[in-house]
């Protein structure tokens, strides 16, 4: 991606990537949604977070270099700035493609003392992956996360836009079966729903499910 990081000449700010060197993939819906979001804030910089959510949906759940570059281009920010923001937040998938479903197991205090590590190890063994990895078929990713703030339902697991808790081995089995059978990627659905809830009724193109 180094060609995208343009430093410009003589004390200029780093320039945003130009359209002709990019492979733009935002759909018409995404462009409309971004236009709507732009009206919410006094400047384009503030649209980086919502813009990255749109990109995460448009690029199938994974923010690769092209996705970062497209957000930077559409918001007139430099590649480095947008990448810097994206890598700070844990819900943007910037390291590797998470696959279709991200199983997020909370292991923070209340969950920890309600056997969350047992659940994590069970998922890990069942799927044959370690924390932070994705299965070879690209179906599941396992991630140990910090407090999901549903401590009353400890131990809690989040998959996309749904919370499950309290979970045990049996309900994990059922959950994995259900996810395996579903067509839709919960990672993409989550990103889509996050975009939709930020849009006003008249700006919304998709639906809130």
């Amino acid at each position, binding site marked *: 991606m180094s060609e995208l990081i343009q430093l410009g000449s003589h004390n200029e700010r780093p320039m945003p990537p130009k359209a002709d060197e990019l492979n733009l993939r935002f759909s018409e819906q995404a462009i409309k949604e971004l236009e709507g979001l732009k009206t919410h804030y006094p400047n384009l910089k*503030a649209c980086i977070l919502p813009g990255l959510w749109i990109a995460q949906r448009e690029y199938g759940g994974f923010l690769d270099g092209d996705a970062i570059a497209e957000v930077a281009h559409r918001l007139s920010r430099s590649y480095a700035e947008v990448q810097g923001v994206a890598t700070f937040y844990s819900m943007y998938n910037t390291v590797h493609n998470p696959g279709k479903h991200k199983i997020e197991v909370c292991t923070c*205090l209340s969950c920890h*003392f309600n056997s969350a590590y047992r659940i994590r190890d069970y998922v890990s063994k069942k799927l044959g992956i370690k924390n932070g990895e994705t299965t070879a078929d690209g179906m599941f990713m396992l991630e140990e996360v*910090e407090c999901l703030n549903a401590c009353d339902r400890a131990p809690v697991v989040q998959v996309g836009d749904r*919370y499950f808790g309290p979970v045990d081995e049996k309900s994990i089995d059922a959950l994995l079966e259900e996810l395996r059978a579903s067509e839709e990627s919960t990672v993409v659905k989550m990103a889509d729903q996050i975009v939709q809830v930020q849009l006003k009724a008249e700006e919304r193109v998709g639906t809130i499910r």
Partner: protein
Amino acid sequence: MAEYKLLLKHSDDPATQTLAGYKKAGGYSGLAKALKMERQAVIDEVKTSGLRGRGGAGFPSWIKWNGLPKEKVKPHYVLCNADEGEPGTFKDKMLMETAPFQLIEGMTIAGFAVQGDVGYIYIRGEFIDAAKALRKAIDEAYANNLLGKNILGTDFSYDLHIHLGAGSYECGEESALMSSLMGERGMPRLKFPHAPLPTVSGVWERPTLINNVESYSCVPHIIDKGGEWYATLGASTKNSRGTKIFSVSGHVNKPGNYEIEFGTPLKELLEMAGGVKGGKLKACIPGGSSMPVIKPDAVDVAIIGYEEMGEVKSMVGSGGCMFFNEHTDIVMLAWRTAHFYANESCGKCTPCREGTRWMVQIMDRIVAGNGQKGDMELLTEVANNVEGRSFCALGDAAAWPIKAFIRQFPEEFEYWIEHGKSPVTSKEALALVP
């Protein structure tokens, strides 16, 4: 005292999540009343009520409200901190999911009082259900002239947007939240007195009012029933007024949110939550993971109140109350707490970034059975050097619990260091070791 349901009064009635149902339950009478009042009178009402910030610090809300310029030059912003991330706390989530209009009304009143133009509700990315409930409510409010231009026929116009975070505990800190809203990495900024207060120069360098979800949710009740009435709640305490929602979790029979009046004994809160399960009480963290741990004898005498909790050397914090039974390994608890803060430290300030990592390394070697003599002193020393030495309170929040665990349960640390294994040998406890 029993539960006192004010904010959660209609939480089990889904009908109040629609505008008609909310109005039927007495909603929006606070806003109607506020719009007929002088702006300063609304702020004075909040002052009379004695409302203090419910996010953790307990700062008097009216001082913030009063701090915004009365002569408006630039746009004013109203922010709601809904980036609830404190381990053990889940009250804001419930308030947003079950009483979205209450929050919207509170923010609209706040917007009116401080001449706000735009409000933002910054919700953590994981809380999509809360965001959906709020979006539905906001759409309905817009359609019924309760948001937008000329609200209820007055000359007050106010926009309200939802902004979702993307996974960062640090963004619950007000200056980091503002950085994040502006499209930056969620890192804190220099604070007063080294930098202007947010009320003078906050988000986009404009006057900004920022409060917690629960604080805003109190406002409609304060305006509707009067600040004086609100101040009668919790009047037995030194300086805490109103109700507070406690999220009770851990080893209790009925975990959940319990709204109580200030002045209620902590012991009663435990009784409301059905008592301890699986054994006797061993420890309690009363206000979220950042707050110092207390022992059962302190739980017996503790009264819930901002000053009163100080007497047992802890704090009300955000209200994430966790109880742990006798099979709990305190060193394991300290180990997990240390990991949490090291994972969530944003990395801006060296003492916090390096100190939290260092504490994790020491804790890791203790629970691996390789603890060294002097590790307890070293942990305390590192914690002392993190505390008060970072831009935001995350450094303090990382140091306080570790110091308290060592102060309250030194024998467990000593056992681990000496024997390389847990002093708690029951079957229940062993299942927890990762």
